[in-house]
């Protein structure tokens, strides 16, 4: 009983008490007061971590921000030897691989969600959903290992020649075939975000009011017409949010992409067979070589800072869209 009293009288205690009074919280008992204090303390630590991440990345990338300014975003050379840094190639690679992955995964993911919510026999619904969700849980190092040793070599010998033979008239499928490159990274990313899109779409479609489906069925609509005219228009905003959330995941994916993208600073091109770079793989590849305090060090941190900004924008946007449906998602809580 001594401890709570003395603690509440300490300087820290006084400050937390002031804070609590400010929050118009009146504790009735020293125990309550301590409990609230400890809880608030932990919450403040979490806040400090989030703000600390933003602050540290900004302050440590300040040297390069000052030296290169906006040219850091448009310059293609990342050259530690001559101390000239730009991450245009990495930004391009990040955006391009994520965009291709989205284009591939979105229709498949939404299609899978439609099947799971409306067409699937009840008996296999839960196991099927579990298997698709499990894909999201596969560690990215495992996909990277498979991508590096099995998938990229297969692409080089079989996949890319086939694409060039049949779709070679498109600029995307021209040029030398390495296996490792933009295409390999995009395909692996699409497999990684597929379950995410499915899970959120499923969640969003499940909250479409039952009466809306039944009304259309009663009018003689087919199951597909119910989805097309009653479910999808209602769920469109939420699905868009889910897709943007998946975009955020794709932008920041590191290990699997680093292993298959080739990690070369090439001028941005439309050739999907080319090797490339992403912001995350710049960090993963280069951090061991940078001396703390150097411009090189700062350039790596700024790559991280840009990545942070990109993912923050996509995430806030996505959450605004998903939240418009007014329900915190249960599946989202587990998967996202």
């Amino acid at each position, binding site marked *: 009983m001594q401890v709570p009293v003395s603690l509440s009288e300490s300087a820290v205690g006084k400050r937390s008490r002031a804070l609590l009074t400010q929050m118009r919280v009146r504790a009735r008992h020293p125990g*309550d007061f301590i409990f609230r204090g400890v809880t608030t303390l932990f919450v403040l630590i979490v806040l400090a971590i989030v703000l600390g*991440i933003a602050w540290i990345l900004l302050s440590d990338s300040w040297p390069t921000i000052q030296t290169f300014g906006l040219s850091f975003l448009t310059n293609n050379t990342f050259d530690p030897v001559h101390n000239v840094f730009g991450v245009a190639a990495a930004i391009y690679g990040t955006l391009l691989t994520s965009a291709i992955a989205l284009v591939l995964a979105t229709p498949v993911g939404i299609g899978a969600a*439609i099947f799971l919510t409306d067409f699937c026999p009840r008996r296999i619904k*839960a196991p099927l959903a579990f*298997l698709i969700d499990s894909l999201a849980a596969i560690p990215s190092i495992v996909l990277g290992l498979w991508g590096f040793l099995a998938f990229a070599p297969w692409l080089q010998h079989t996949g890319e020649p086939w694409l060039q033979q049949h779709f070679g008239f498109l600029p995307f499928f021209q040029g030398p075939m390495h296996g490792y490159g933009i295409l390999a990274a995009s395909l692996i990313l699409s497999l990684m975000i597929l379950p995410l899109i499915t899970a959120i779409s499923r969640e969003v479609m499940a909250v479409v009011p039952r009466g809306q489906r039944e009304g259309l069925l009663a009018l003689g609509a087919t*199951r597909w017409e119910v989805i097309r005219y009653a479910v999808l228009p209602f769920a469109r905003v939420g699905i868009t949010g889910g897709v943007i959330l998946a975009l955020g995941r794709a932008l920041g994916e590191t290990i699997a992409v680093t292993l298959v993208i080739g990690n070369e600073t090439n001028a941005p091109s439309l050739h999907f067979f080319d090797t490339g770079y992403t912001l995350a793989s710049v960090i993963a590849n280069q951090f061991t070589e940078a001396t703390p305090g150097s411009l090189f060090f700062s350039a790596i941190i700024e790559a991280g800072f840009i990545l942070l900004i990109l993912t923050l924008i996509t995430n806030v946007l996505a959450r605004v869209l998903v939240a418009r449906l007014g329900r915190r998602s249960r599946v989202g809580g587990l998967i996202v």
Partner: protein
Amino acid sequence: MSVTDMSATNTNAVPVRNPFRPENQTLNLRRQVVNSAAVVISALFAVVGVVFLLYLIIYVYQQGSHFLTLQFFTQAPVAYGESGGGVQPAIVGSLVIVGLAALFGIPLGLFTGIYLAEFGRSWLASVVRFMVDTLTGIPTIIFGLFIWVLIVVPAHSFSALAGGMSLSIIMIPTVARATEEVLRLVPKELREASIALGATESRTIWSVVLPSAISGIITGVTLALARVAGETAPLLLTTLGSSFAFRSIFRPTAALPLQIFDYTLSPYDTQIHQAYAGSLILILLVILASFAVRWATGGFKPRD
């Protein structure tokens, strides 16, 4: 001749129509075809993910299962190119790092969840809720970068401790959201009964609300731990990896994902197959954890 006779008699008769059959038969057929096509295509799309998952598991199993022997768990790695050896330091290191992550991450997540559920009406709570949501969306390598700059660079040493810290940040949102959600499900009557018996607010939360929600919280923690056990990117920047036995949490430490990463890049068969064996362990770990969680939360029961 008889056919034209038949049709002639038919046009004269009064047509008997099924009132539920639409007038335009071809339109109806088209709608049915579109519907069937939608079922088939969406089923194919649903199968894509499942087929890939099963293929991946089978492939990793084929490549790695032979190396999943007792010595794989008990012996230290051998030099590249030699056969034999195991990943004992990596497994020990992973346990230590995930243990450290739990040590920091569980209290932070738990109390944040309690705060959001119990005291979550102030402006601070909405800020915290926003920050927790934000944390979920930040790429994990950013946490690695953060701890690298904050801890590793000043200390001039990669360490298991730094790795545990970076993983604990990943755990916070998962644990906090799981806690908040299950605490909100605890019936109001239970709290009121406790307060009516004279219990204080903290006693009510600690001895009544938390115990009745404990299984849900354990679920969230399990999932978070299984998820961070397979994380590689943040560990790369914080613990670096090592091929020696675990000595201290203040030194570079081996971890299973890092060992797999190193072996992936090695040109030798033994190491590559050991990488697959390690991957198999990670896959089993996450799938078993998600299965247990889904089973415990009743996710396999057919619902509407």
